[in-house]
C-alpha cells in the first residue's frame, strides 16, 4: 500500500483529480466568477503553447518564434468549424477533418516513395509534400464535402444536441491541431535543415505571414466570416473546465511520455550536440521536424481552446509582440523544464491578466511593456537558467534506472575486463 502511494503516477493523478474537482466545485458554487475562470482557461492555453515551444527550443534546441502562428492557425481553424456548424453549414468541419486525413495519407505515401531514394534534394521533398497536402484539401473541398456534408450534418444533428455539440467541438479541436501540425511539417522540411539561427528568423517570418493573412481573411482569402482585421465574432462559447483540463493533461502526458522514450532521448541529443547525434546514427533532421510538429500540434490545440473561451478572435492577438509571450514564459520557467513552464505559464496570466489588470490603477497596461523587459533582464542577470533550471517534479522527471545487481556475462567470462579502471 505504501509502495502504491509512493508511486509518482498515483500521486500525480490524485493531485490532478483533486485540482479538477476543486476548480469544478468553485465554478459550480459561483465562487469563481467568469473573469477568473477565463484567466485559468487562458493560463492553461498559454501553458500548452509554451510547453510546445519548450519541446522545440528547450528540449530540442531549435530557436523558434513561430509558435503563435500555429496557435493562430489552430484558433481560427477550429473557430471556423464551429462558427459554420452552428449556422447549419458543415463544410468547414468536413473539409478540415477529411482534408487533413487525405493530406496525411498522401504525405505518408510521398514519404514512403521518397525513402526508396537516398540523398533526396530538400526542395523536392518539400514540393512533393506540399502538393500532397494541397491535393488532399482540394479533394475534400471539391468531392468529399458535396458528397457527405449534408448527410453528416443530419446524422450528427440527429443526436441529442448536447452530445452533437461535444462531438463537433472535439472534432474542431482535433482539426485545428492537425492543421497546425500539417502546416508545421511543411514549414519544417525546408527550414529545419538550416541551422538554428536561420530557423529562428524563418519562423518569425512565418508568424508575420500568418498575421498578415489573418488581417486579410475576407479580402485575399475566401473566409468572409473571419472578417479580417475587424475580428471574428460569433464563435460559440463552448470551452468548459473539463475540456480545458483534459486537453491540458493530454498535452502534459503526451509530452512526458514522448520525452521519456528513446525518441525523447534522441530529441535531447540533438540539443546537446547535433553533429555527435548524427554520428550516433540518429536522423537529426527528422527528430527536429518531429519535435517541431508535436510542439505545433500543442499550440493548435491550445488555439482551439482559447478561441471557444473568448468567442472572439482578432489578428492582433497573434501579432508580433504577443508572439514573444511563450518564449518569455519558457525562459523564465527554465529551458528544458516542463514543471517550470507549467508554473510560469499559469502564473504569468494570473499575474498580468488577473491581478495586475484588476487591482492596479488605469494606464498600467501600457507600463507592462516597460516592466516585462526589465524583469526579463533581471532574470537573465540573476538566474540565467530560469526559475526551475531543469528541475522536474517526480512525475515528470526522467526515471533513472536502478543499477544492475548481478555481474554480467562479460564480467563472469573475462573478470579482468571489469577491473580496468581509470
Amino acid at each position, binding site marked *: 500500500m505504501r509502495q502504491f502511494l509512493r508511486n509518482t503516477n498515483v500521486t500525480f493523478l490524485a493531485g490532478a483529480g483533486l485540482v479538477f474537482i476543486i476548480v469544478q466545485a468553485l465554478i459550480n458554487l459561483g465562487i469563481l466568477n467568469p473573469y477568473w475562470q477565463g484567466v485559468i482557461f487562458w493560463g492553461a492555453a498559454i501553458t500548452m503553447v509554451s510547453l510546445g515551444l519548450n519541446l522545440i527550443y528547450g528540449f530540442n534546441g531549435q530557436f523558434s518564434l513561430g509558435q503563435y502562428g500555429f496557435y493562430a492557425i489552430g484558433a481560427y481553424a477550429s473557430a471556423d468549424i464551429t462558427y459554420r456548424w452552428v449556422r447549419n453549414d458543415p463544410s468547414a468541419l468536413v473539409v478540415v477533418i477529411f482534408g487533413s486525413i487525405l493530406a496525411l495519407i498522401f504525405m505518408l505515401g510521398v514519404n514512403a516513395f521518397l525513402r526508396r531514394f537516398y540523398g533526396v534534394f530538400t526542395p523536392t521533398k518539400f514540393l512533393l509534400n506540399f502538393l500532397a497536402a494541397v491535393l488532399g484539401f482540394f479533394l475534400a473541398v471539391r468531392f468529399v464535402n458535396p458528397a457527405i456534408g449534408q448527410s453528416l450534418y443530419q446524422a450528427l444533428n440527429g443526436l441529442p444536441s448536447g452530445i452533437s455539440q461535444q462531438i463537433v467541438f472535439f472534432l474542431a479541436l482535433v482539426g485545428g491541431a492537425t492543421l497546425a501540425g500539417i502546416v508545421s511539417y511543411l514549414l519544417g522540411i525546408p527550414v529545419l535543415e538550416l541551422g538554428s539561427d536561420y530557423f529562428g528568423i524563418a519562423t518569425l517570418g512565418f508568424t508575420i505571414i500568418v498575421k498578415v493573412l489573418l488581417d486579410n481573411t475576407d479580402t485575399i482569402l475566401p473566409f468572409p466570416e473571419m472578417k479580417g482585421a475587424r475580428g471574428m465574432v460569433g464563435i460559440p462559447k463552448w470551452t468548459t473546465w473539463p475540456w480545458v483540463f483534459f486537453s491540458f493533461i493530454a498535452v502534459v502526458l503526451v509530452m512526458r511520455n514522448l520525452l521519456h522514450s528513446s525518441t525523447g532521448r534522441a530529441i535531447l541529443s540533438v540539443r546537446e550536440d547535433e553533429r555527435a547525434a548524427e554520428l550516433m546514427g*540518429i536522423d537529426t533532421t527528422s527528430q527536429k521536424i518531429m519535435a517541431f510538429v508535436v510542439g505545433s500540434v500543442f499550440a493548435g490545440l491550445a488555439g482551439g481552446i482559447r478561441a471557444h473561451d473568448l468567442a472572439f478572435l482578432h489578428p492582433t492577438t497573434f501579432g508580433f509582440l504577443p508572439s514573444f509571450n511563450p518564449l518569455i514564459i519558457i525562459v523564465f520557467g527554465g529551458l528544458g523544464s516542463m514543471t517550470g513552464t507549467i508554473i510560469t505559464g499559469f502564473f504569468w496570466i494570473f499575474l498580468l491578466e488577473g491581478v495586475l489588470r484588476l487591482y492596479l490603477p488605469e494606464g498600467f497596461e501600457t507600463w507592462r511593456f516597460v516592466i516585462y523587459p526589465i524583469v526579463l533582464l533581471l532574470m537573465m542577470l540573476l538566474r540565467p537558467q530560469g526559475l526551475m533550471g531543469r528541475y522536474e517534479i517526480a512525475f515528470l522527471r526522467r526515471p533513472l534506472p536502478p543499477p544492475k545487481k548481478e555481474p554480467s556475462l562479460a564480467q563472469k567470462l573475462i573478470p*579482468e575486463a571489469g577491473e580496468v579502471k581509470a
Partner: protein
Amino acid sequence: MKGRPENLGPEVEARPVILEIEGLTHYFDSLRAVHDFSVTIKEGELVGLIGPNGAGKTTVFNLITGVYRPTAGSIRYEGAPLIGLPSHEIIQMGIARTFQNIRLFANLTVLDNVLIAYHPHSGYGLTDAIFRSRRFRERERVMIEQSQELLEIFGLADRQNDVAGGLPYGLQRRLEIARALATQPRLLLLDEPAAGMNPQEIDQLMELIRFIRDRFQLTIFLVEHRMRLVMNICEWITVMDFGEIIARGKPEEVRSNPQVIEAYLGRQAIR
C-alpha cells in the same frame, strides 16, 4: 591489392574486404586536405593511421562518416558506396566512430549517452511511446539491460546515473567508445583514443581495444598520435603527411622508414 602492404600473409588476404577507399581527395576551398588516399581494410584487422598534426587524418574519418563530401574518390563499405549518404545512414550500416575532442552529450547521464546510440535499434515508434505499450516497456527494458552490460565492460556501471560531463577525462574517453559500440558497428573508427592519457592509461586502453575487438568481432581503424599505442596494437599502419600517404607497412617497417622519421622529426633528425 591496392591500399595495402604486400606482406601481411595469405591468411589475412583471404578475408573479405570491409572498407575500401580509393583515390580519396578533398579540398577545403583551395587547401588540399587529402590527396589520392587509398586504403583497403579486411574484416577483423586493426589498422592504424598516423601522421603529424594537420596531415589530414581526421578529415579522412570525416569523409568516411559523411561529415564532408569528398572532392573525388570512392569509399565502399562491404561493397556499398558511401559517398553522398547522410551520416546517420552510414552509421546505421555498421560504422561507428569516436571523436578526437570528446563529444559526449555532456548534460545527460552516462546511461542516456549509451541509450541514445541505441535509438536506431529501439524497435518502437511514437505511438508506442505515447501510449506506453507493451512493446515500449519490453524494448526499453532490453535496451537498458544491453546498455548496462556495455557500461560494465567499460567499468562505468557504477557511474550510470552520473552526468557525463562530470566524469573524469579518462572515463569520458571510455564512455565515447562505449557509446560508439552501442550503435552496433562492425567497423569502429577511433579518432585519437589515447589523446591526453598517460603511459599507464594507454596500456589499459590497449588492453581494452584488444578486448572489445574480440568480444564484438570488430574491425578497427584508428587515428593516433601516440606511438606507444599504435606500434603495439596495430597490425599494419598507414602514414600520412600533408594529405598524402607516404608509407604503409607493419609497425616495425614503418618505424624504420626514413620518410616517416623525416615527417615526424624533420630533416635534421636524419643526419
